[in-house]
């Protein structure tokens, strides 16, 4: 890097003045460069739409579109026995908010409905149901379409427990069962940190991680790679600006976009979807800024290494966005994966930010976790920005 022109009049004696002058020049150049970058950002609608419009679309999709909760699942009920006892037994399904039962005449018809996926499950009441029930051997069959496994297992669980409970109630009424003085364990379960028991509460905080990664890593990598590809960096190079100033000027506008995205996410999470904010908002902002630095560092590093738009986009997709979806605990719980995958998942900074943000929003200020995750994020930020600077400087020389 050649000596900057602004530093030229510096002499050994008035070091303080020179330093002040250097800082002034630094700020002036930074301001000019940043202004140029902001203008460029505002002119190209595609950048802005990724930074601002996509978060809104994602918010709406996650808040309204995606849900792991089953409601009103269509279930075919085959009444081979139409006795009052059989009607009683399946009334549990009619009352449940989880199912909307459809009566069909034969197992054949039910099978057809399953094949065409008109129904998710079939409940079969065999023809000898009422006589068998009277003899204490009632039997019901529940068949579920297993292709969408998670939905299917929820449906199976709900259907079985609803039918069994109704069975116990019927037995009680006929004076058979629990009147006989035998005790039983009653489960009294409480869900902490998600009183509404809705998947929206656990999906929406994760979305903040996704959006910060999007603007921080993906967008930055793309924009910077373009400069490399077009050779505009070399043009900047012969001017008095230093690499750090170029990097800073590039980062600042995207940092701003990231912060706007974050604000939008938090506002919609709170006011549109009613996600609680149990921990401190200030801490959350601090952690998010920390993570934004990590993401920006990743984006800069990718662009400096690849120097090619296509490669930069593919690599940032692979190392930043897909891991947020799949390996960070966003949707899939890392407790359930093999040990090795769990370790790999924890190598990604997003995983730590994800745990932190879910805790801060849903659980509260749990200090040991906050301190641990924040220090990990700080380490990652230093590592990636340091590496990016190293790679950029070396190549610019």
């Amino acid at each position, binding site marked *: 890097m050649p000596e900057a022109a602004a530093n030229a009049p510096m002499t050994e004696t008035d070091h303080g003045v020179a330093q002040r002058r250097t800082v002034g020049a630094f700020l002036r150049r930074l301001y000019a460069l940043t202004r140029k970058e902001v203008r460029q950002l505002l002119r190209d609608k595609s950048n802005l739409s990724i930074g601002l419009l996509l978060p809104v679309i994602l918010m709406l999709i996650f808040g309204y579109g995606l849900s792991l909760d089953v409601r009103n699942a269509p279930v075919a009920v085959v009444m081979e026995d139409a006795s009052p006892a059989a009607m009683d037994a399946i009334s549990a399904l009619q009352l449940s908010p989880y199912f909307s039962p459809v009566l069909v005449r034969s197992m054949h018809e039910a099978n057809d409905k399953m094949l065409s996926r008109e129904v998710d499950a079939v409940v079969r009441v065999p023809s000898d149901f009422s006589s068998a029930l009277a003899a204490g051997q009632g039997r019901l069959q529940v068949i579920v379409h297993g292709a969408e496994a998670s939905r*299917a297992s929820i449906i199976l669980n709900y259907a079985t427990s609803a039918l069994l409970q109704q069975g116990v109630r019927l037995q009680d009424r006929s004076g058979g069962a629990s009147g006989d003085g*035998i005790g039983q364990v*009653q489960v009294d379960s409480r869900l*902490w940190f998600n009183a509404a028991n809705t998947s929206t509460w656990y999906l929406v905080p994760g979305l903040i991680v996704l959006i910060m990664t999007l603007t921080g890593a993906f967008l930055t990598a793309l924009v910077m790679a373009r400069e490399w590809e077009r050779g505009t960096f070399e043009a900047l190079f012969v001017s008095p600006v230093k690499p750090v100033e170029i990097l800073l000027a590039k980062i600042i506008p995207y940092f701003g976009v990231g912060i706007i995205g974050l604000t939008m996410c938090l506002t919609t999470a709170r006011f549109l979807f009613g996600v609680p904010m149990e921990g401190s908002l200030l801490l959350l902002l601090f952690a998010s800024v920390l993570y934004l630095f990590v993401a920006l560092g990743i984006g800069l590093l990718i662009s400096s290494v690849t120097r090619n738009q296509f490669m930069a986009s593919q690599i940032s997709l692979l190392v930043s966005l897909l891991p947020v979806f799949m390996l960070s605990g966003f949707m899939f719980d890392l407790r359930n994966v093999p040990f090795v995958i769990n370790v790999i998942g924890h190598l990604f900074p997003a995983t730590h930010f994800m745990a932190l943000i879910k805790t801060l929003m849903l659980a509260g200020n749990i200090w040991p976790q906050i301190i641990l995750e924040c220090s990990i994020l700080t380490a990652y930020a230093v590592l990636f920005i340091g590496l990016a600077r190293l790679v950029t400087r070396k190549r610019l020389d």
Partner: protein
Amino acid sequence: MLNKIFRILTLCRKEMLAILKDPSSRIVLIMPVFLQSLLFGYAATYDLTNAPYAVLDQSRSGASVELLSMLDGTGVFHRVATLENEQQIQDVIDNGEALLVLQFGPDFERNLYAGQAAPLQVILDARNSNSAGSAAADVGAIVASFNQQWRQSQGGSAPALTIETRAWYNPNLETRWFIMPSMIASLAFLQTVMLTALSVAREREQGTFDQLLVTPMSPSEIMVGKAVPPIMIGLVQSTLVMLVTRFWFEVPMAGALLTLYLGLLFFMVSSVGVGLVISALSANMQQAMLYAFMLMMPLMLLSGLATPVRNMPEPIQILTYANPLRFAIDLIQRVYLEGVSIFAVWHDLVPLTVIALITMPWAAWLFRHRLV
């Protein structure tokens, strides 16, 4: 006619070379798909396989020990802490050490012997509501079978009602059986659309597209030449994921390979059509990539890959009719897991064809009419 085919083939060859000449882009088209399918096959699971729990047993009774041993017997639940008092519950849940805490009151066994209801408190960390829900359901099922054993050991009658359950196409209801076939379409979708979106935009940016337009090739020939290479790359990627699904994760394939590939071909043509429209609309590579990406995020999310389409609200379900991936995932699931014939998936093929018939001519028209 022969000339026409020759021209298209030449363009295809040139496009293939442009994509594959760079070793790093060859790697980026093959390795990630392979690694992702392995990684996500393990990671993308909603199944509860590991539920650490803590116990606060104030009754210290035979009954509570027996119930806990039934819980341990599942292989899913394992005890990470034995608590002394209620204050500790907060700690083990807060720091994520335990997903759930079971609390037996001092009168637990006494109540059971007295013929009363013996409450068992279950406290769950629902920061991940899905895991908490599965754990609650599992505990419920274990308690139900404990109750039944208890009744019988106390000389009570067996319950009058039993439920027989069965799951079609996925007997153990493993998420992987659902996710991996869906990946066959989704992983290829991502890169195919990106690649196509870049193809015309790159020529636009470099100024060679104008040259291409003044050659004897018609816009539709250019379109076909641009479409064929990404379709082939997409099919190769799908094949890779399919091999991993079939031979590494051993998800049994019920359907015919030919049917599957025919369906995939329809899907690839329609997604490449989407990519070409994006490409023709963008002025440069960066725009093409960003627009492609902006479109793909919602398409992937609302395809049924992350959460079932049936869980979505009605208006959003209607929106997904314009999403090729939604139909591809449905088609592959039916063919791969259920083993249906091509005639049984016509309702997936029709929308895919419609999407292709709209996007392809649109792209060809844009080639000529949008000179940016």
